[in-house]
């Protein structure tokens, strides 16, 4: 694991199309998010009118004057070449999975594989969105799938509403404590 000093102050948000990455960054950011969205041109168009084609960018302004950048990766897999570039030097990954997709557990598996190297040096916290209208698979199914994939220690998996700042903040807090349970916020 790299030292904290070696990392950039950035947290990566990734996940499936329509999972709420842009919304989550917007909920947490202290600035209006910079988003490079465009009219969706492929299968994504069935799911949402616009989608992120480059990245979303938000900022957490710390009281000390430092900034923590919040980067959202494009959801479409054809832009996956950007994921490594964006995540380079990041603190950790917030992975959002849209539970209303047809195979969310497969989505989870795919994203964990894509970010395997990054996660192995940092940590991941998983937010499952849209569970209000698609309650299955339930959180226990996600946990079982993570165990089957050999992901240890088991990351935090929360039901999340990307519009709620407190849900997004809870995911980030879980990420930080996963990196170091001895952290103090005082």
């Amino acid at each position: 694991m790299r030292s904290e000093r070696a990392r950039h102050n950035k947290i990566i948000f990734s996940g499936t199309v329509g999972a709420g990455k842009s919304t989550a960054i917007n909920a947490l950011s202290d600035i209006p998010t910079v988003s490079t969205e465009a009219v969706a041109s492929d299968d994504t168009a069935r799911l949402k009118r616009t989608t992120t084609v480059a990245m979303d960018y938000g900022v957490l302004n710390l009281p000390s004057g430092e900034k923590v950048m919040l980067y959202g990766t494009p959801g479409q897999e054809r832009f996956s070449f950007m994921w490594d570039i964006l995540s380079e030097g990041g603190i950790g990954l917030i992975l959002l999975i849209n539970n209303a997709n047809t195979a969310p557990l497969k989505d989870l598996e795919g994203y964990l594989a894509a970010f395997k190297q990054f996660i192995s040096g940092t940590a991941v916290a998983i937010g499952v969105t849209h569970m209000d209208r698609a309650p299955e698979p339930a959180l226990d199914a996600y946990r079982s799938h993570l165990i089957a994939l050999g992901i240890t220690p088991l990351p935090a998996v929360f039901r999340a509403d990307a519009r709620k700042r407190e849900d997004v903040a809870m995911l980030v807090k879980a990420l930080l404590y996963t990196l170091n349970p001895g952290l103090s916020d005082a």
Partner: protein
Amino acid sequence: MTPSKAAPPTSGTCALHLLHVGSMDARLIGLSIERHWTRAVHLVDTLEEAHVVLVDCDRPGIETALERLAGNPRIGIVYYAFHPRDHASRFHPRPVLGKPLNLESLPLTLAQARADASRLIAAAPPRAPTARQPPPHPHTAPHQPPPMPPAPQGHSLMGEDERDFCGAMDDIPAAQGGALPDKLFFDPDDYLVGRLHKALAQAGASGRPHVIAGLQRLIGIQSRPQPVCVTAFRENQLRPLAMTQLPEATGRIVSTPIIDDATNSLVHFAAEDFLWNAAAWAARGRLPSGTNPYLPVRLRAWPNFTSACVSPHALRIAALWTRVPASPVDIATRLGIPHRYVFSVYSAAHFANLLDTSFQPEQTAAASPPAPPMPERQARPSILSRILRKLRDAV
């Protein structure tokens, strides 16, 4: 000063005024009176109507409450505190009860305090409990105490005092040996969580919904397709209900063919989250009876902290306990926190079915090198800590 208008202390039910009591305790006591003590105690809104008052010694502003009592020597006073011995000499001969209040015995204590107050009046001239009584102004109306602000309804769980959530129990010995204090444990059968746990098991076994009958509002459990709890209670009502000891006859578990939501007023919760919360609220830093706090266990998964209540240090505890099997005492030691915070998480995880004992002995914390980094000792907090501090108020 306005003289007390209380009825003669030997007749009728005891008029109780919650003079200096937190909103959560007020709701707990109110529910208990409503359900079980209507023949013994009734709540009154003003000091002047009261036979007895309750005073929480740990709440800020107690001096103001004492000043108000100074003008009402006929009123019995029952104090309570996390550390009653610290206050006993100051308030002698009034009783100072320990927290959490034993609601079973409280009516008797109130009646005793009422009787004692009348004896004190007969034996001695009125005297102020502790504080100096402000002199009455000769040309003004009798002193009227300022109105107390209404208790907040629906306050945030995270805003509660840590002690309200996890009690104030001292740590137990770091190593096993000797008897543990009884107050370390609670019997889940006395609380809502015990009923819920049984109802969930019965619903799972039978495949039929079950309800907890005899409560003011509906609580039902369905095991399929996903285990859920449905209820007409609002969250700010659920917490005091979960903290209250239920009589045996209250909260019977009944099978039902369907949970009727004709009024569309029922709220659905994942059973895991619902039981986590009910258990954490009942536990208040204690362990379910029969628990060995020196036995290693592991959290098989993080609880769903976007719905499950987050007791103090719960995130840190979950982060560590999902990595390494360890006893509750070991976890507290490794994180450098009081045992009660870990006991609270243990109790909640037990009833949410998130504890795992199926691991090899060599995997335990005692057998493995320290897995997580130790608490920070740096002069300047790390960037992770600084982010946490920024997010602290976001939840």
